[in-house]
């Protein structure tokens, strides 16, 4: 059974004051996330990531389609007990202490009162906030609030966890800690669905990713599968101080450093470039295929959404 099954979920807002006109925030979305996966939902700002998450949380009503979480319809009241949610740039009741906040959320999640204080304590320890348990949240830094947000999302041991931009605003150490925590959740058998525009994190963490842009799903799959489809490039390094005109004409990016030249060409120009080097009598030092990163894939996808949307989605 899939953890999340989105079937044609879509959202159109009516904008304007007097003359209302429709503005589509999300085109019909088809997406399936398997249990135990870490799934990355990628897209630039305004792509429709948060709208999708809000619809899954019941905060925004879809104008079409449906979704099921753990086999239950979104409107099924039992769903909410099985999910955890961290909103983007979370802000909590700042007059409460971290411990009070977790206890409050625990009560709302229906956790039994007698174990709640202990569970809140354990959770604060897990996110590294045990020492500041009695401090009001108004005195917390952004990174600390993000940790509280993660603690409240996993407090009730949900089976599916939704994080909206969990690494946003965190320093490298904080990002690393969140990544470790997500991996721990996966190891515990939980499904993690998170939206991000920090592609290195998605690349390091996700079993699969989906790319969304302007409310439209552009691609979905494992990172390696997606990046393998991108036009490859090769890096050539040879001895010399100049770039011969025949190589310049091939349109690669060339950099001269001391007595070596480094050039990156499209894969299909590789043979021609080698031939040109041989003709010029230049000594080849290395020829290495350049690995396509998710970022490069992402940039290429967003540059030509109109060409690729139909083909992959």
């Amino acid at each position, binding site marked *: 059974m899939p953890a999340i099954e989105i079937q044609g979920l879509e959202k159109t807002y009516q904008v304007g004051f007097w003359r209302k006109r429709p503005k589509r925030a999300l085109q019909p979305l088809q997406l399936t996330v398997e249990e135990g996966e870490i799934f990355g939902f990628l897209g630039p700002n305004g792509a429709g990531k948060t709208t999708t998450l809000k619809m899954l949380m019941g905060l925004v009503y879809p104008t079409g389609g449906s979704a099921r979480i753990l086999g239950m319809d979104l409107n099924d009241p039992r769903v909410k*007990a099985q999910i955890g*949610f961290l909103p983007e*740039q979370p*802000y909590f009741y700042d007059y409460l202490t971290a411990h009070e906040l977790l206890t409050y*959320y625990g009560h*709302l*999640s229906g956790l039994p009162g007698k174990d709640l204080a202990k569970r809140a304590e354990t959770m604060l320890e897990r996110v590294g906030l045990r020492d500041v348990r009695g401090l009001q949240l108004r005195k917390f830094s952004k990174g600390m609030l993000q940790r509280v947000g993660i603690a*409240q999302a996993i407090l009730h041991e949900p089976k599916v966890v939704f994080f909206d931009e969990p690494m946003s605003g965190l320093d490298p150490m904080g990002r690393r800690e969140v990544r470790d925590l997500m991996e721990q959740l996966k190891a515990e058998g939980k499904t993690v669905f998170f939206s991000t525009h920090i592609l290195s994190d998605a690349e390091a963490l996700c079993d699969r990713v989906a790319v969304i842009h302007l409310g439209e799903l552009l691609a979905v799959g494992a990172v390696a599968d997606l990046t393998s489809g991108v036009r490859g490039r090769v890096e050539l390094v040879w001895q010399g101080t100049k770039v011969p005109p025949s190589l310049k004409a091939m349109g690669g990016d060339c950099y001269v450093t001391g007595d070596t030249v480094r050039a990156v060409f499209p894969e299909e120009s590789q043979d021609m470039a080698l031939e040109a080097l041989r003709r010029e009598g230049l000594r080849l030092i290395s020829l290495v295929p350049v690995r396509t990163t998710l970022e490069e894939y992402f940039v290429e996808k967003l540059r030509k959404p109109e060409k690729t949307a139909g083909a992959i989605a």
Partner: protein
Amino acid sequence: MNARIGHIAYNTFREAVRDRVLYNLIAFALLLSGSAILVGQISMDVERLVVVNMGLTAVSLFGLVIAIFIGIQLVSKEIERRTLYTVLSRPVRRWEFIVGKFFGLAGTLVVNTFFMAIGVFGALLYVAHKFQKPDGWILVALYFIVLQFVIICAIALFFSSFSSPLLSAVFSFSLFVIGSFAEDLRRFAAMANTLTRWVVSGIAYILPNLSSLNVISSVAHQQPVSAQLILNNTAYALLYAATALCGAVLIFERRNLK
């Protein structure tokens, strides 16, 4: 009341208690009670009347400010600060959130009124040196003031469920002012011709009748309040607040939390 509503209500109450504005208002109310004593001392033979009148009016006005000031922000602040997202992503229904918020604010006002009432009775004792039997009617006047707060809370929450805090404040305060003259409006309707009578009567019945909940003047004159009025006012206030709350829930249930 289910447990979730209770926890939301308690959290709303806790927010109000930890909010410094609330403390300031209590301090102001006490200050006004103090000035009532001063006025009482310079009012020959009518100290009791002046103190009860001013004290209860102060309780009513300060409570009203708190009810509107907090009531209009109950929902909008939660949406604006996105604190609502982590509440509604739990097994909490939207109506439970609204009802919990209402009980939290109403509870805050009851506690607040209790402390201000102590101030009023303290001032009365200071001026009159002892309580008299008719002073017990002050408790009924205070009860009616609380009923007014219950109505105003529900109205503020109703407006807060779909409008901005500023507009909600304007609407709620306007309804309070018009509602305080509801009896005059009904008298005007009775004197008008057919069409105007129908329209004005309709408006008068839709608006909250707060004037019947104001017995400050008669209590200050040590006049009793009938049991029938207490019963009618209780039923009316609870029914009106419940209707306003239902309206708030109906609107909030359909709202997209962008």
